[in-house]
């Protein structure tokens, strides 16, 4: 898995590529959680190039969301599609997270208010 983290339009955009599984989830958690602990409250996670996610990955996403919620922050997910979307739907994550069709749409939704 690769994670690219960049600042864009007043938020942080994290682009994930490859597999978010039991092997890679600890790296995801340490990278993303350090962004949140560094004070970021607006986060977009881009799933466009992520082609696999397991419960270990879902757990990591939930931890991120809980951390942000505790700091009155917000996270939106962009480009959740295909098999990854199916895993979200089966686990009920599809209805607890805010999802958008593009990073631009996620950024607009986060910074509009």
């Amino acid at each position, binding site marked *: 898995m690769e994670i690219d983290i960049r600042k864009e339009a007043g938020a942080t955009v994290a682009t994930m590529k490859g597999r978010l599984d039991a*092997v890679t989830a600890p790296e995801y958690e340490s990278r993303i959680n350090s962004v949140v602990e560094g004070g970021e409250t607006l986060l977009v996670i881009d799933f466009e190039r992520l082609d696999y996610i*397991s419960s270990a990955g879902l757990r990591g996403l939930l931890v991120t969301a*809980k951390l942000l*919620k505790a700091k009155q922050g917000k996270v939106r997910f962009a480009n959740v599609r295909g098999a990854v979307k199916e895993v979200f739907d*089966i*686990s*009920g994550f599809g209805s607890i*997270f805010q999802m958008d069709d593009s990073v631009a749409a996620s950024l607009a939704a986060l910074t509009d208010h």
Partner: protein
Amino acid sequence: MTHDTKRFAAIIANLDAVSAFVEECADRFGLDAGKKFGVLLALEEVFVNICHYAYPDGAGDAKITCIDDNGLFVLEISDEGRPFDVLSRPDPDTTLDIEERPIGGLGIHLVRRLSDGASYQRQGGQNILRMEFKR
């Protein structure tokens, strides 16, 4: 009916090798990409569970068997750890919001939903989990 079996040390670092073995079997047995995704995900959930819980007092193996049974692709995963029926765990409440959602408990829910049938047996000192996938 053909099958292929391999043993792996039950450690998370072996996940890539375990997945590669099952993926190779799935390709050889002619499983389509959508079904293969479900098989590999169910595999990870069960294998990781074994790594975490089967051998609290030390090291052990997981034995992975792929069976090509006409209309079915069967994945059988066994360990020699403490007796534990992972299917006896209740399903998590998937309707809870972010604050109430417990961390974890989703893996077996995914196994139940992605397979077309799962059963547990304790036999000869082994936990044997059998998952069937329709083509």
